[in-house]
């Protein structure tokens, strides 16, 4: 699987490099892989590339953490008090259906050009899949387990800790895995809209300077970051599935 993936990547890079060389494509259209690498090395040495990566990673980290915790808390609240779900549904749907691109300028107006609006945007997009994953897990607990809880006269807390929470873990982490890609996108949108640091900022300044190599380099870097983030949660999800799902 991994070997084939690497072979595929090598092939694409070879085609890219070969094509640029054969057809003599100008740099401002499509720079060669070597030119992109050189540009990345330059940014690494002279423009604190790692510092920008760190900024973006931290925005995603804090935003994701916030959205994750808020999603879990909301699901607990909604499962316990269904009326609270009905009351907050309009607000949640509004936030969820509004294009994130449209929310971003508002957050920038309110929270400035620093990491704060990006963190909030990431939290907003993370919230929804995590909340629905947790809530559906809590709602569809195997009925037989609830019978067991009843025979054992478990307290609500015991029932939650021993039965409902473990039952919800697979769908919670399925939701979180979906949220990783959304979170990545949200952070970059925030940075593209207005920032003075972060990978998205480097990307948009590359665009302003018609620096195609930087733009391509940043796109590749973001894909790599998003992919690792996704794989991390996919691995967690698989572990949860193996341990906590039926069967």
């Amino acid at each position: 699987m991994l070997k084939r993936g690497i072979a595929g990547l090598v092939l694409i890079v070879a085609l890219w490099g070969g094509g640029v060389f054969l057809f003599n494509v100008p740099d401002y259209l499509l720079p060669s892989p070597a030119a992109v690498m050189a540009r990345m090395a330059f940014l690494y040495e002279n423009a604190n590339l790692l510092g920008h990566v760190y900024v973006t990673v931290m925005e995603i980290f804090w935003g994701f953490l916030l959205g994750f915790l808020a999603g879990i808390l909301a699901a607990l609240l909604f499962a316990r008090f269904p009326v609270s779900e009905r009351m907050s549904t309009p607000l949640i749907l509004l936030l969820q259906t509004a294009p994130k691109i449209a929310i971003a300028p508002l957050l920038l107006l309110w929270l400035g050009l620093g990491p704060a609006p990006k963190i909030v945007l990431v939290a907003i997009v993370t919230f929804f899949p995590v909340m629905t994953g947790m809530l559906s897990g809590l709602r569809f607990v195997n009925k037989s387990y609830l019978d067991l809880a009843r025979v054992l006269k478990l307290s609500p807390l015991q029932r939650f800790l021993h039965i409902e929470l473990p039952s919800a873990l697979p769908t919670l982490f399925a939701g979180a895995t979906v949220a990783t890609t959304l979170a990545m996108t949200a952070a970059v949108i925030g940075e593209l809209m207005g920032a003075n640091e972060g990978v998205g900022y480097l990307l948009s300044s590359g665009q302003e300077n018609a620096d195609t190599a930087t733009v391509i380099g940043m796109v590749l870097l973001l894909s790599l970051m998003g992919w690792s983030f996704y794989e991390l949660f996919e691995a967690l999800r698989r572990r949860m599935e193996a341990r906590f799902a039926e069967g």
Partner: protein
Amino acid sequence: MITTSGLTKSFDLEGGSILALAPLDHRIEKGSFVSIVGPSGCGKSTFLRLIAGLEDASGGTVKLDTGSAKRPVGFVFQDAVLLPWKTVRDNIRFPLDTAGVRRDEGNRIVGELIDLVGLTGFEDALPKQLSGGMRQRAAIARALSDDPPILLMDEPFSAVDLLTRETLNDELLRIWQRTGKTILLVTHSVEEAAYLGSEVMVMSPRPGRLKKTYTVDLPHPRGEATKLDPAYHQLVAELRQDMRETE
């Protein structure tokens, strides 16, 4: 003692309702071992679930005089219902842990029960690593662990191989004689019903109701000699005849 008066249960289905249990008046003395037989759909499970409080009666009452017992009944479900994220040991000690029994006391009880049901060596296995029969044995051990005064068993041995089944039958009789529990056991085997019971309830379907009860006078302790007793064969023959009539 378990007393039911006019106990009845109907389930609402689309376009009507089904009478799962016609009004049932019955009295089960404390310390009896009641075998329940009858074709599928005659309300055996419903009867046990009503006694356990897992279903609300549509009419009539069930009274359990189990004094101050916090958990009056233990239930062995038809399909084991082990929690998939807990090991065999943790499943068996679940009733103890949630009742606040001391850890060392719990370990002692669980150790004995694991020996009793023949799961030595599988303490740390997860339920999905066990065969159906082993899962049911773990479920039986779990139901015994907190020593409830009433034990309800819904076809507990259906997935257990014949030899183990006979061993477990004898163990169950020993436990019953030692502890004076009231046991209700649903089975498809008329031989098992006769061998184990101090009373046999024969139920019949459409609507589910109690057709007949037998008091079993076969002497205790029961064993290989019981299976040679003409009175035992007589009872088995009568039960078989009843079952044919209920078809």
